[in-house]
């Protein structure tokens, strides 16, 4: 047998092994999601395998569950408000950090990212303690502020990465042509930042919609978000209704960024065929 053929056979085995490991990783990653989705259609009274038949009854039950609907509404509006405010704050912060030189810039840079590094539980307790110290009640506003705190670092990072690619000459050109600083930001910088704005908003929405541990600390008495609602339902039993609720959550947190991404792609294709990084 020639050395080449032997090498080929070894290569084939290595390739098979890689394939097998990859498959295992994917099964490990997606099994929980698939199990949740599949079991949400189970006719059985128990929230686990085996499947006894196909049924939509658990979705029907969800729609009739006033508590779940309230939690869904709460999560939606909190995530929306969080996304809007976080994106605005994040983009302006990133713009400032990239475009201007000022004292304490490095410090601000670190401080902005810090909430992403501190464990969520600590942040949860911390904000609560702070609120207690100034003698304020736990309101939905606190919940929104908390979620903004959690999401801002990610939006800043995304916007900064995009901002670096937008060369300063575009703004200088706009200024030289007679646009004020605000006008050149609005007409030049912001449109070029759109991909980062959309990505940041989607991420902020998802972070807020998903958040569990910090929300447990921050929610006002009697208010549930989707994740906390699921947690409290789990305390009673593992009902198949929870699988249905889980599927809805997966749909929202995966579906919204997906739709957003597709929209953005379509928009980009419509408006231009190059972007500032590709064309210099």
């Amino acid at each position, binding site marked *: 047998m020639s050395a080449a053929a032997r090498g080929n056979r070894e290569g084939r085995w290595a390739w098979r092994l890689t394939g097998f490991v990859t498959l295992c990783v994917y099964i490990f990653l997606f099994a929980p999601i698939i199990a949740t989705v599949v079991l949400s259609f189970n006719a059985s009274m128990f929230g686990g395998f085996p499947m006894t038949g196909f049924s939509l009854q658990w979705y029907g039950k969800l729609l009739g569950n006033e508590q779940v609907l309230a939690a869904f509404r709460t999560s939606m509006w909190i995530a929306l408000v969080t996304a809007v405010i976080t994106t605005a704050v994040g983009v302006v912060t990133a713009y400032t950090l990239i475009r201007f030189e000022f004292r304490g810039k490095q410090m601000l840079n670190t401080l902005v990212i810090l909430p992403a590094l501190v464990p969520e539980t600590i942040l949860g307790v911390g904000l609560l303690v702070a609120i207690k110290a100034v003698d304020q009640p736990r309101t939905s506003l606190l919940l929104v502020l908390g979620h903004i705190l959690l999401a801002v670092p990610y939006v800043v990072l995304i916007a900064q990465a995009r901002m670096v690619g937008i060369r300063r000459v575009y703004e200088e*050109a706009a200024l030289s*042509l007679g646009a004020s600083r605000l006008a050149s930001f609005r007409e030049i910088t912001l449109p070029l930042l759109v991909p980062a704005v959309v990505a940041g908003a989607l991420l902020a929405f998802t972070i807020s919609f998903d958040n569990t541990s910090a929300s447990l600390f921050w929610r006002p008495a009697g208010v549930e978000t989707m994740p906390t609602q699921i947690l409290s339902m789990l305390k009673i039993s593992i009902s198949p209704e929870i699988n249905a609720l889980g599927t809805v959550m997966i749909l929202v947190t995966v579906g919204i960024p997906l739709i957003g991404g597709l929209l953005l792609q379509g928009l980009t294709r419509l408006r231009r065929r190059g972007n500032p990084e590709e064309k210099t």
Partner: protein
Amino acid sequence: MPDKLTDQTSKPRPSPAGASQAVAGSAAARPGAEGGTPAVEFRDIDIAYGKFVAVRDFSLAIRRGSFVTLLGPSGCGKTTILRSIAGLVDISGGQISIGGRRVDDVPIYKRNIGLVFQSYALFPHKNVFDNVAFGLKYRNVPKADIQRKVRQALEMVRLPGSEKKLPSQLSGGQQQRIALARAIVFEPEVLLLDEPLSALDANMREEMRVEIKKIQKETGITAIFVTHDQEEALSMSDRIVVMNAGAVEQIGTPEEVYETPATAFVADFLGKANMLAGTVSAADQQTATVSLAAGQTVTVASPRALAPGAAVTVVVRPQKLAVGPAATSNRLAGRVVSTSYLGSSAIYEVDIGGRTTIRANTPISGKIAREGEAIDVGFGPADCVLLDENGSRIA
């Protein structure tokens, strides 16, 4: 260093408060427009970035309608000067006026200047029309006029009908034309060009050079052009401001700076002149005999009587040197070190002794001298410039 700032007559510069300014511009070109306020005027400009002084004591007045080039190596402060006119760089001392109006405190978007960048800087998300119309929009020009002016500007840069295209669909040269149209369409007081040709390939550069100059003449706009390319500077400018290390070395017409460099730097930067060091051995009112360090003696024209023993440098352009039998005066015997054949002419590097190599660029007549051949080079007494020991032209 006031002695570094030299106008074309090389008079010592008066005190900073003095009214006399170095004036760059085409004095003879538009006699009717004389005596008006300069389009752009710098008075004793200092610009510093932290502790680094980028420009010091820069004074210049630029005539309306003239094409002035700031020429120098990278880091000489030329781009800094240009950006200070635009308001993109803060000056730390002195004052800048555009059309007689002081602009030190005027923000960039109120200065009414047209700016063309090396990297074009067309807005990538706007089409050609919106790019060119941008400046008009912010000047509240009526819609119908915007349409007309944009069309005219695109015709001027020879890209009519490209309104709907996006910058990414255009070549580099086309993008720079659009950038030029965008900068002139609103009739700014000054057009600032920051190395606009450097990003283009060689053929396109040549074409754009002619184009820019033509458009500047047609519109009569005052243009300030920054480059490190001497060929661009010589071929396009009414006046050239040669800069080095944040200060002006010489201001003059292309012919003046090339033929009579005021300093050793200018002689070297423009066209790599031969610099022959020596000492004056004999002199009268019109001529000086110089013993070169290379061991040979030349007699050259001198503007005044020089003191024997004075250290001087004889500056001779490669094009002024005659080779072989054509070398009739100031013959220097040497040996060819290398020959570059350029078709219509040839460049010889000739060793004339004393570790001195001299460069001659001559039209080809007869056979070409090869490496190692003994050869004579020579130049006319008036075909050179004399510099004193400080590297300043003796006048």
